[in-house]
């Protein structure tokens, strides 16, 4: 079943074409990688899926329903969570509060009942806290629960961001360069987590990645972008050997 369908998406910034006619399909239950040199439009594509950038043309469908043009805060409600290339955490809040915000869209209470902290709010908060604890366990963040995010090392911040995205309980998880800025051990951890998220939690993953080792290890399918267009799409092994991809990454053969 196709979970996310991107069809001829166009995006221009002024005169610069960031995406021209990008199409790809993400199958449910798979890990799908997007590769490409710097400036190929990978992150732009993510921002288009999230509704942060309005697209100039084309359609994005999630579970068969069109999501192009939806406000950014409505996208996660459909079941799409994401992380950012250079972590976007709430820097002055604790790790717990960061992850708890992932439960925000599941809340059933409103401002007034929260101000009075009615029993319904208390119950909901305890349930949220329990859910968060599962994720803290899953990603081994126990030692950092009460720490302020800004003072944590970058690798931990990345895990916190992943934890926050998982707290949403999404169906599709967008990971923007999960391994950038991580050391080899942390990268390896991330690969294992991606496998676990896919296998145990049944979450479909779309990731942008530069590290080809990570891509080969986790992704079943890969799409290669260059200058805003798809140059190859298919099984990771095939895309890796595709002459266009090799040309885009390594340059023309002498």
């Amino acid at each position, binding site marked *: 079943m196709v979970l996310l369908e991107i069809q001829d998406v166009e995006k221009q910034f002024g005169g610069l074409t960031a995406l021209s006619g990008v199409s790809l399909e993400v199958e449910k239950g798979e890990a799908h990688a997007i590769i490409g040199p710097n400036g190929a439009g990978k992150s732009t594509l993510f921002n288009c899926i999230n509704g942060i950038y309005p697209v100039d043309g084309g359609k994005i469908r999630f579970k068969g329903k069109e999501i192009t043009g939806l406000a950014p805060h409505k996208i996660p409600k459909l079941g799409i969570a994401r992380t950012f290339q250079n972590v976007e955490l709430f820097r002055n809040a604790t790790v717990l509060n960061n992850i708890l*915000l992932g439960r925000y869209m599941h809340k059933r209470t409103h401002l007034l009942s929260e101000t009075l902290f009615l029993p319904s709010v208390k119950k909901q908060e305890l349930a949220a*806290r329990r859910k968060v604890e599962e994720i803290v366990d899953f990603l081994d963040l126990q030692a950092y629960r009460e720490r302020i995010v800004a003072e944590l090392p970058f690798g931990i911040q990345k895990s916190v961001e992943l934890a926050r995205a998982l707290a949403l309980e999404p169906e599709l998880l967008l990971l923007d360069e999960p391994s950038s800025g991580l050391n080899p051990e942390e990268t390896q951890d991330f690969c294992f987590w991606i496998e676990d998220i896919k296998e145990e939690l049944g979450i479909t993953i779309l990731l942008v990645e530069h590290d080809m080792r990570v891509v080969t290890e986790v992704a079943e399918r890969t799409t290669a972008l260059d200058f805003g267009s798809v140059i190859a799409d298919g099984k990771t092994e095939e895309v890796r050997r595709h002459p266009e991809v090799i040309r885009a990454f390594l340059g023309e053969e002498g």
Partner: protein
Amino acid sequence: MRFKLKKTYMEDLKLFPYKADMAWYGLLLMTLLLFPLVAGHYWIYNLTLAGIYCIVSLGLNILTGSTGQISLGHAAFFAIGAYAVGYLTTILGWSYWIALPLAGVAAAVSGLMVAVPALRLSGLYLAIATMGFGFIVEQVIVQWKGVTGGANGLLINRPSIGSWHLTSDNSYYYLVIAMVAIFVLLTKNLTRSPAGRAFVAVRDSEVAAQTMGVPLARVKVQAFVVSAFYTGIAGGLFAPLINFVGPDNFTIVESINFIVMIIVGGLGSVHGSIFGAVFITLLSEFIRISKDLIPAFLREQVGFQTAVYGLVLMLFILFEPMGIYGRWLKLKYLFQVFPLYRKDTFRRVRRFQRSERTR
């Protein structure tokens, strides 16, 4: 060294994580309740005023400290609260206990009216827009004589509960203390619930907040409305305290005082709001008392007090950006980890990793 072993999730939600905290706050409350027995009218009056400012700075701290939306127009909400009470009790003759909540509601509605057009603004531009709102309200107060009494202002009586009149300074002091306690509790509730987390999320990263499903516009408007409500109630308490409302009480200088309070006290924290409000109120009294010690050429300058505020603000931003509350936390930490504290524990480390923001 103090370590809290948490056994249930409920312990994360508790207002007082340590039993000792409860004892300390109980002691504080007792001291405040017994204070009128030992202090004269002068100090009771000042403490009442400080209490009212506490409610304002709690409200402003939700907007500016937690949500990151600066406002230089809070004197206007304060004025709306004060005049609402003045108009409803003095001119319409309603009960104060109906007028006070309505004062909050009136301010909240005007907060909504400011917030919706101000949604697209941030930082300096928002400051200017809210300042403009402050000036508009100031003008309206002077011109709308039927409601506000124009430049003459309105006389306002202190309220009564049944046959018990709160006309004495002491009884009014107790009313204000009770209100401060209620608003501290409400603010604490906000900060430990999803709404409070959404405020902080909007401040720290708008993009991330949106991708977590936080409706940016709605949350910003909520922050404005809540903040204005607090300030309106404070205004409604302020008017009967001085038995009078006039246009002179609600100028831009007052708005700046509110900002100074929360920055000096500590942005985004309940403690900070209280520390700041009490500190600034007492500072202005201290300046008044010590006027004789200051050389004449200085004390007769126009705006001497404002200059002192400015100096205090600058010193805090330079040396203790977390305000009095930051200093307080460090002191507490020193005792908690007693033998392990180092001089550099809180030295600020410069970090260069900064995220690119998609705005």
